[in-house]
């Protein structure tokens, strides 16, 4: 390995390291392969696996949103579960009380969360680093209790939560597939629906970070003073990052409510916020494709550790997490870079 290669593995300096924007995404070939796999796999697996894949995409979106905030603009948040909850409840309430079509509830959820995030971003401007993390932590702790409040109970169902009806595939699609002797289950439909939205948001996010706004965010992340002296409106971009992140989390929350068919305050506790944070770190801070690797980690690793030992599942999970952080501190991104280098060497 040459010295130049060594530099590729970024050395840690600040809390959120500077990720060059090119390195935030995957190559076109890899992206297409992954997309094809995501399209084809559900045709051959059980509904349960499809459901797990749906959850993977949804959690992936939520981690992605956090990644834009932390990896993009360098702000920490432990409050993503709160925005996820707002999104989930918005979708659930609109579907169950107002009979709105499930697809239409998502933009509403996203918009509402964008506004909520933007507003929360205002006071958050004065805080940075651990203090911001703490403020968002408060948001996450407060959310389940707010949802239980008697005042909202008529809408939220209080502690009992709300049951959401799972959508069927649209009739024209169903009849078209029937003609081909194919059946589409509810799970499969929800999966493809989620996939389309996830891909759209992913592509949009990648473009966002490559755009002028993305460059401004990264400038803020790397050095706020330098960014402001270059003419970047630091306050505006920081709050915008909060808003965008919350908005995407809200859409993920709405999708989550549709896929799980149930919302309750206990689903959106601080533990969930920490899981998302964990997913981001495991996936690699600032590396967008890593979000989905991180999501896989928070969904599947608890199951694996449980199968190893029921009584000590928490401890086993801790050991696995420790191993990941110890061996690959930059998460999936580091693995990907190492893989690329390896492939490059073989080519030579």
């Amino acid at each position, binding site marked *: 390995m040459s010295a130049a290669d060594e530099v590729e593995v970024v050395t840690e300096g600040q809390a959120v390291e500077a990720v060059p924007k090119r390195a935030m995404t995957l190559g076109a070939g890899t992206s297409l392969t992954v997309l094809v796999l995501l399209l084809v796999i559900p045709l051959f697996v059980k509904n349960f*696996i499809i*459901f797990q894949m749906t959850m993977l995409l949804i959690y992936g979106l939520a981690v992605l949103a956090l990644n834009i905030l932390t990896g993009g603009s360098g702000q920490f948040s432990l409050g993503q579960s709160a925005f996820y909850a707002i999104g989930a409840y918005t979708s659930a309430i609109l579907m169950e009380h107002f009979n709105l079509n499930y697809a239409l509830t998502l933009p509403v959820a996203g918009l509402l969360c964008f506004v909520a995030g933007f507003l929360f971003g205002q006071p958050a401007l004065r805080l940075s680093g651990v203090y911001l993390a703490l403020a968002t932590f408060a948001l996450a702790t407060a959310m389940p209790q707010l949802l239980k409040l008697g005042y909202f109970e008529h809408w939220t169902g209080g*502690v*009992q939560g709300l049951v959401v009806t799972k959508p069927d595939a649209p009739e024209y699609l169903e009849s078209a597939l029937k003609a081909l002797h194919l059946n589409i289950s509810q799970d499969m439909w929800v999966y493809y629906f989620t996939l389309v939205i996830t891909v759209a948001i992913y592509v949009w996010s990648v473009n966002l970070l490559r755009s002028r706004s993305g460059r401004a965010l990264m400038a803020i992340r790397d050095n706020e003073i330098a960014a402001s002296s270059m003419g970047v409106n630091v306050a505006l971009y920081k709050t915008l990052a909060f808003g965008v992140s919350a908005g995407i989390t809200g859409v993920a929350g709405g999708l989550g409510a549709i896929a799980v068919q*149930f919302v*309750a305050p*206990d*689903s959106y506790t601080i533990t969930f916020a920490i899981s998302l944070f964990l997913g981001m770190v495991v996936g690699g801070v600032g590396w967008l494709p890593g979000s989905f690797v991180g999501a896989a980690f928070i969904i599947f690793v608890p199951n694996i550790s449980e199968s190893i030992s*029921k009584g000590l599942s*928490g401890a086993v999970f801790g050991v696995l997490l420790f191993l990941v952080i110890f061996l690959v501190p930059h998460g999936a991104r580091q693995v990907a870079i190492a893989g690329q280098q390896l492939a490059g060497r073989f080519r030579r």
Partner: protein
Amino acid sequence: MRSCQLHAAALAAAAFALTTGNALAQKKYDTGAGDTEIKIGNIMPYSGPASAYGVIGKTEQAYFDKINAEGGINGRKIKFISYDDGYSPPKTVEQARKLVESDEVLLVFNPLGTPSNSAIEKYMNTKKVPQLFVASGATKWNDPKDFPWTMGWQPSYQSEAHIYAKYLIKEKPEGKIAVLYQNDDFGKDYLKGLKDGLAAKASMIVAEESYESAEPSIDGHIVKLRASGADVFVSITTPKFAAQAIKKLAEIDWHPIHVLSNVSASVGGVMQPAGYENAQGILSAAYAKDGADPQWDNDPGMKNFFGFLAKYYPDANKRDGSVVYGYGVAQTLVHVLKMCGDDLTRENVMKQAASLRNFETDTLLPGIRINTSPTDFAPIQQLKMMRFKGDKWELFGDIISGELSN
């Protein structure tokens, strides 16, 4: 009276023989059952905020180990698959789907928690897989018309509250009741039960205060309740707050009739920390025997229970009510599966579960029986009042039924 009981027993035996006889002729199986094995699924919070209840799952596993070691149920071994949901509803959904679609269990037995069970209720009923004997005291599990595949087990909070209402109407008809309740499904369900039970006498309640489970102290609420001039204090609280309330009452020298919900009736968990001297005379109700109470040491049922613990689950804490609970509910399931004979279809499991007649587990208080019918999905509805004296509970009075009229 005696002959009447004999008759009933004979009839039950005949009916049992008939059903098994029928089933012998034709072995019928649904997914998850076969000639050698019955797959039972379960979801427990082994991790997370409610992980103390994980003991229930472990006890059930140990009980099924015992059944398997003794030859299984009608020759079939039980394969018990228990997953952790960390008390998080989305995870419960994932685990329930894994059990039904991937592990292909015959039924999901005793999943724990009101929110977790609410999350999977619709799914289980659409899939027509029994969600049998759920571990939650919510009243909603007794709804055979809308959810014919879901059944509770323990007395519902409302049933228990009915019993206190009956007692208070009888013993303290002119009483003024102050209620402290936890602001969640448990507290609200309970309060509703109390009011329904008091019915026309609901005006006996002169003050209501709710607290959040996140509040550090409930002292303020107690002082407020005292100011209402009440002489009966109903404490619908979870253990930590129950102990606080007992202490505070002694501190401000307020001595009303103190009724305490069964969930907090633990001697080790509530009475001891609150101080035995402060807890004298507190009233509550129970349906199961207390493993720590020496009065059951020579009870044949509890001897079975202790024997089981010694052999199959030696590191269990017999003072822990969850162990007694897990044993009792697992015993009920085994009884239902025995009744199913060779017709191990999901439909028959529900049918047999809905036709329990005067079934007694080793751990139920003497005289308390499990009864179900196609329109009654609440297996245990009876409790016995008890009063705290010295360092233990003393049972008194008759068995009271808290049956809810739907």
